[in-house]
């Protein structure tokens, strides 16, 4: 297994998405095509240029630090399951 194939297997494992064997095979083929497609981007001489991290200049925007009360009843109503003051979720401890 080459590096890309091993990397893809690792990605499938850590992202926790169930994929069937046929889909897995297809993903391997498609990843190879995708990486080939990206080759021209890799050939661009970017030198010491800093990468961009934000698409806008509004960084660290602060709002007035004043307490506000949310409508808890509205939020609780939107939850799939709320009872006894708790948001109930499926069991996540084994």
């Amino acid at each position, binding site marked *: 297994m080459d590096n890309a194939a091993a*990397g*893809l297997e690792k*990605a499938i494992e*850590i992202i*926790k998405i169930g994929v069937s064997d046929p889909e897995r095979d297809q993903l391997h083929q498609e990843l190879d*095509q995708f990486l080939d497609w990206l080759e021209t981007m890799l050939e661009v001489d970017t030198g010491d240029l800093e990468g*961009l991290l934000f698409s*806008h200049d*509004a960084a660290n925007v602060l709002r007035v630090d004043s307490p506000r009360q949310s409508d808890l009843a509205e939020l609780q109503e939107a939850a799939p399951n709320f009872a006894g003051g708790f948001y109930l979720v499926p069991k996540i401890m*084994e």
Partner: protein
Amino acid sequence: MELRKTTVHRVTEAVLEGEITAHQLIDKTLKNSNILNEGLNLFNAVAGVDAIEQAKAIDQKIKQGGEPPLAGIPVAVKDDLCYGVLPTSLGSTAFSEFISPVTAGAVERLMDAGAVVIGKTNLDDMGQGATTLSSPRGATANPWQAERTAGSAGAAAVATGICMLAVESDSGGAQRQGASHCGVAGLRPTTGRVSRHGLNAHCSSFARVGITAFSCENISGVLDIISGFDERDAATAVCRDGIPEHIKTPGSEDITIGYPVTAFDFLEPELREVFEQARDDFVGLGYKIKEIDLSLLREGLQAYYVIALAEASSNHARFDGIRFGKTGEADNLEQMYLQSRAEILGQEARRRSIFGTFLLSKGNYGRYYRQALKIWQMVRREFEGVLQDCDLVMLPTAKNLPRPLQGESSFLDEWSDDLFCAPVSLSGLPALTIPAGQIEQLPVGMQLVGPPFSEKTLLAVGSTSAPRPAQE
């Protein structure tokens, strides 16, 4: 009153002056939407009683002396924008019954101005795509040729005259390409002009909320209403003290349009001819044309996909069956996660999330992701550079005519359709799609791209120049 043949201003005037009530207008709109939805697959959910109640409330407000500036205007909302009345599916069957506790900021503003939401429009799998071909509910057909995709259901809803406006997300070009394929106008605004609150973005860096309408005039009529600071979206802080408009009087010979010669080499000859004609039409209208070079379109597209996939892998992490989405049936926790996520994310969203995780992993981060961030910087600088020499840039919107609903295409073919839109997304600049011409009875759109907050200039130029394709 046929909505395709009039304007937002005229309809509002008619409602305010009592020629037609908002109730009558919306009632007729809903009947039309039910008829057309069956043939074109426009809506994931249609508002019935709620829209009628909204319309009645507007009529009541008018009786009491109110003058809502968008009184009774029917609006469609893309189904990745939250609306607290109808389900917000995000393009996944797992959320087909999810009703958000919030309504998107842009939608709220339109409703406050008297507009009425008539439905949630179809979209690709988790909003990822510009064809609707990956929608779990099936693709939306093009109103011009039903065997082809519309690109965006909102644009199709506007083109058919069901609604006058569509509020749509646009990351790599879905809204703009939909407008191009359906022969209508679509504005992707400058970063920070319109609130993204309530938008379920797969790609936070590039997702914006735009407006699609039958004409530039109709977009102009709502731009100020949806624009401005919203404390729930930090990017709008640039508008905290007002919109920093960049307006240049259009129609004069002082306007120079940049024409990126080599960009058109990516097109088939018949498409290229459409843009050569559009360029000549601009000259005929008195605009100056300056040949420019945009050399990084292909690499910009590639960088967009690297960043967008990386962000999707992170943004989709919350769809795990615990925090969001239906919980899959399984014997143990590991299987429950695998099952839930496989059911929530469709094939396109799974592919993008998995590839995104790959790109962010050790060894690949530096090779692909870091390089993509640098290309992002270069593309932004390239656009800034050409806009030093011209007032706006014209570009194609879509690389191809709309895809056939039944055709075979690879994922890379479909991603490559974003060639002219994705680099503009990287630039952060506003882009207006307007009709440029027609091929094989299908509309072809072009983009006008300008400096930050130049939307009003783009709309003014667009409204003087756009030869609207005629469709009966």
